[in-house]
């Protein structure tokens, strides 16, 4: 093993980028775009939901509840006819109708007061935002009236105080972007190496298979780190994400994940004869990672019969470790297990990718 020969490979990958604007654009723009788009799309809570209030009661009580509805979440209109209001929902012009019956305030005394909610529940997120807003308005009204719920929950978060959904998924997106892009870039570069015959040329030289792999690991590892840096900048500057833990530790996770990905890319290249075939692997990488790695849905939300698959793919550990460091502020002492698993994946993939270079000798 000569590090100099490996570095010759690394150098040529970077030199190649000087003339390959398309790949450079992919390296820089892809993470920037991914983070920006996901950030914008997911940073907002549900807002401006059109609802219609039909207040047959017209009492102080109903007015107070209506006044307590969060106007950021709901766009409230008033109508007199329940039928017309429901028609609006049926036509897709509103998400829900709140109906206060004539006897609403009278029935409070007998504890039979009911607000009728006629909603379009086809969108789960919108429906739950409507229900939550209404419930909050009622609780608030009750409190204002001097009434108290017999039980209350006093919350003081252990982790993730002030954490919003974006804080939850940014570490996931980072791990995902690094995993996907590194695998893709390596795959494309290595398929090129195989199809052009340069790999054969290298193999006829004193270059060892392990040195070729190492050269790729260093090059795409560095590229992965640069991408991670870009992602972190956008997340912190653009979306006000705070990194609770040590950013350096986050970097170690990214590096390990990149190490896994480079070798996965080399492995996959052995199965692809052309670049076009390599691209066909993409859904095979993207889908399971997206669905199973816990980026948007916690692994706990995956049916138990499928959960083993989550634990069988490397990004799951990257996402988990990343989230622990960035949101929980955990250190090496808490996430070492994930790091060890990632390292094990990296070693196994590395051995396999070196082996894959020896195969094909026929």
């Amino acid at each position: 093993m000569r590090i100099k020969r490996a570095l010759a490979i690394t150098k040529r990958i970077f030199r190649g980028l000087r003339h390959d604007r398309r790949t450079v654009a992919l390296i820089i723009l892809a993470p920037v775009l991914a983070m920006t788009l996901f950030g914008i799309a997911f940073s907002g809570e549900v807002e401006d939901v059109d609802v219609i209030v039909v207040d047959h009661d017209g009492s102080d009580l109903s007015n107070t509840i209506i006044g307590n509805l969060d106007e950021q979440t709901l766009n409230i209109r008033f109508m007199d006819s329940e039928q017309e209001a429901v028609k609006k929902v049926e036509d897709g012009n509103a998400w829900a109708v709140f109906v206060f019956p004539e006897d609403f305030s009278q029935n409070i005394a007998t504890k039979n007061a009911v607000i009728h909610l006629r909603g379009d529940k086809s969108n789960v997120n919108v429906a739950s935002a409507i229900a939550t807003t209404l419930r909050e308005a009622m609780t608030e009204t009750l409190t204002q009236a001097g009434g108290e719920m017999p039980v209350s929950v006093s919350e003081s978060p252990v982790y993730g105080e002030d954490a919003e959904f974006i804080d939850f998924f940014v570490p996931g997106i980072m791990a995902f972007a690094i995993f996907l892009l590194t695998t893709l870039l390596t795959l494309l570069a290595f398929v090129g190496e195989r199809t052009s015959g340069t790999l054969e040329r290298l193999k006829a030289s004193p270059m060892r298979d392990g040195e070729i792999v190492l050269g790729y690991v260093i090059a795409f590892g560095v590229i992965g780190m640069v991408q991670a840096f870009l992602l972190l900048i956008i997340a912190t500057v653009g979306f006000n994400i705070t990194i609770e833990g040590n950013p350096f530790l986050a970097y170690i996770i990214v590096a390990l994940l990149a190490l896994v990905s480079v070798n996965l890319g080399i492995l996959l290249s052995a199965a692809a004869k052309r670049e076009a075939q390599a691209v066909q692997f993409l859904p095979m990488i993207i889908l399971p990672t997206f669905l199973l790695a816990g980026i948007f849905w916690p692994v706990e939300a995956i049916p138990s019969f499928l959960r083993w698959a989550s634990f069988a793919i490397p990004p799951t550990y990257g996402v988990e470790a990343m989230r622990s460091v960035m949101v929980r502020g955990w250190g090496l002492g808490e996430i070492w297990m994930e790091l060890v698993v990632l390292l094990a994946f990296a070693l196994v993939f590395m051995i396999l990718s070196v082996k894959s270079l020896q195969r094909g000798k026929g």
Partner: protein
Amino acid sequence: MSQGENGLAVETRGLVKKYGAFTAVDNLDLKIERGETYGLLGPNGSGKTTTIKVLCDLLKPTGGEAFLLGKKVGDNSIAPRIGYMPQETALYLDLSINDNICLFGEVYGMSRAEIASAEKELLEFVDLTKWRNTPVSNLSGGMRHRTSLACSMIHNPELLFMDEPTVGVDPELRASFWEYFETLGKRGATVVITTHYMDEAHRCGKIGVMRQGKLIAEGSPQDIIQSTGCGSLEDAFLELARKGGHHAD
């Protein structure tokens, strides 16, 4: 001459290479002396490239043995001493000529100064000095071939395998290529070349004719012509190709 197990640059004994059930190299016994310019001839698909790849340890032989410079193929000490120019161009298109050459120089462990002086000489020889910093993707096919040739010789190998090095190269340059190959021979290097050009075959010290993975004739160009009783190497070659019934009319 350096000492090996024996004096030969290339030796194969009963070499066999199969792709699945198909036999591409069939019981090949080759002996190539050091310092020789050896031409490997044969129709398309006769197994020339496969033979070279087995010798360069890029393919595992199915049977038999092969030795280069007295060492069994697979021995780590062989690679630094041999050069290989593949049939396809096999260059990094995104890199300049200079970058390609430097990469292979570094791969062979040469210092910067060594690379610089070897590169200068080679670029003059392949007549690409003024294109030195041009990306290979912007070069013509023949120029790429010349670059590829320079890359395979940067480390001044003792034994050089060249798979159709002159395809697409213009006649003037081809002539100068052959002068250079002859100079290499005089310096003691062994050159193994495949070609489909008979005028090139004429310039080889020895030629071997392959057909269906077998060596069907071997000797100096004169020997080959005499043994077939033909008037020219071209006719001799056609005669040999026909004899086995492979190219029967």
